[in-house]
């Protein structure tokens, strides 16, 4: 009970629950339609989904200011790649929220002559840019961690066996023998790929915040891709992705150590 009270006191937290509910409705509507449910039930679910969407837009009315503040804070980061990615991502989010607020005004009748389609497309474009930047940041962090991990593995390897220059599958990348071919054969490529994948999995396993953030952004990216028509999947897949990413972000709110910093 205590945790619910603390949880719902944060404005963002409730919004995430309603987002999960909205995408669950999308998914449910799709599965029920495939399963042949009554038109009445489908109409109710669609109505609920529209209501959740509009109310969430209402709840998000102040978020542009928040995103701008986050961008101002991100300018002071030391790493220049992170600084660029995160600042521009926040700026794109601020633009997305601004378009979203305009859409809300249009949907509630405050701006009746608004071209809702155009503004909707605009907002999804900004959302897509923000997600691409987030994924770039994730990829950069993964790359840094993988390099660090492989350096520490090679350091441990050179301490364990002094004759580490002998070529072999364990430290094939660091063997500098004169017989290294200029175009590695397929088994060597597969071995390298396997090693990289193993490194990737170990990095992700030891960094749950990064893994969660990567999964969340990957799930989220399908939503604007579908809405902009760049990669149409369908309401079922979009609903499932949205639901998964909402649950992951609820987890980062419930357990703050799971949130990727900065």
């Amino acid at each position, binding site marked *: 009970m205590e945790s619910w009270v603390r949880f719902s*006191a944060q404005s963002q937290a409730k919004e995430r629950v309603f987002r999960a509910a909205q995408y669950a409705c999308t998914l449910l509507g799709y599965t029920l339609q495939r399963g042949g449910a009554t038109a009445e039930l489908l109409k109710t679910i669609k*109505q609920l989904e529209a209501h959740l969407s509009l109310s969430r837009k209402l709840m998000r009315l*102040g978020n542009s200011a928040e995103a701008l503040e986050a961008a101002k804070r991100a300018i002071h980061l030391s790493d220049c790649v992170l600084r660029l990615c995160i600042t521009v991502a926040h700026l794109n989010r601020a633009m997305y929220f601004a378009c979203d607020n305009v859409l809300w005004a249009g949907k509630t009748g405050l701006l009746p002559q608004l071209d809702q389609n155009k503004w909707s497309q605009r907002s999804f474009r900004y959302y897509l840019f923000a997600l691409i930047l987030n994924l770039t940041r994730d990829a950069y962090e993964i790359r840094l961690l993988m390099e660090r991990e492989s350096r520490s593995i090679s350091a441990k390897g050179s301490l364990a066996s002094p004759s580490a220059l002998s070529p072999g599958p364990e430290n094939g990348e660091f063997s500098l023998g004169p017989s290294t071919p200029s175009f590695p054969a397929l088994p060597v490529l597969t071995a390298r790929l396997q090693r990289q994948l193993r490194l990737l999995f170990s990095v992700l396993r030891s960094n749950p915040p990064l893994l969660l953030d990567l999964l969340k952004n990957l799930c989220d990216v399908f939503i604007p891709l579908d809405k902009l028509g760049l990669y149409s999947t369908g309401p079922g897949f979009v609903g499932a992705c949205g639901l998964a990413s909402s649950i992951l972000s609820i987890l980062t709110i419930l357990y703050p150590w799971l949130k990727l910093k900065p």
Partner: protein
Amino acid sequence: MESFIKYSNQSQGRDRIFRATQYACALAKYLLRNDPARKALLVKLRSLESNMSSGRKLFRLGNTVNSIDAAKRTLLLSDPVLRLCLTVANVSRALYFICDNVLWAKHIGLIQGIDKDRWSLNASRYYFVSLLMNLTRDAYVMAQLMVQKSREKQFQQKASQHLNDSPDVACVIIPQLDAFLFLFIESLRSHPAVALDTLKNACDLFIPLDKLGIYQTNAGVVGMCGLVSSLIGILSVLKPNLKIKP
């Protein structure tokens, strides 16, 4: 900007802003109702108000749990009068939220076949009871403060000075009433949280009084009272020392 973000991040803060907007729309609608040139604006105000209202109802979906949790906490208070008033107020609010959630489900279409008017009436009744309990608590706290203040030496000096200041006026006004009012106003001034809470509850009281038909005013008065109480609520979230405790 910083304070706006910190404020609106609190769930309650945003809800109070939307409530203020909702009642401002209601007031504006009432004031402009007979103006033929503002028909388009009236439509927009009506749509905005209903939007805010339904959005807030969705937002309130979890509040029953919050109220029950608050009731459990107030059960542990030491003062028996405060314990009774606040616990009954919180339980009543929890029941109000349950009725409100049922009304939301009916409005969405998730539940059919319930008597909307009966549930709406019950919701107003529970809200009314909780407001009455809150006002009782305010009166009790005020009485305690006044008793405490009247025993202070500093205040006694001030009171005798006030009564001696205008002797010819004191002949006209009953001196005891004058002294009582002076004590009352001085107590309110030194405890603004209690004054604001009393004003907020008194304003809020007009809303269920009108809905239940006990003291019917009109949409304008209801809108004005709702707006004032929301603004006081926003003030008490912005400045936590103005919020009454417990």
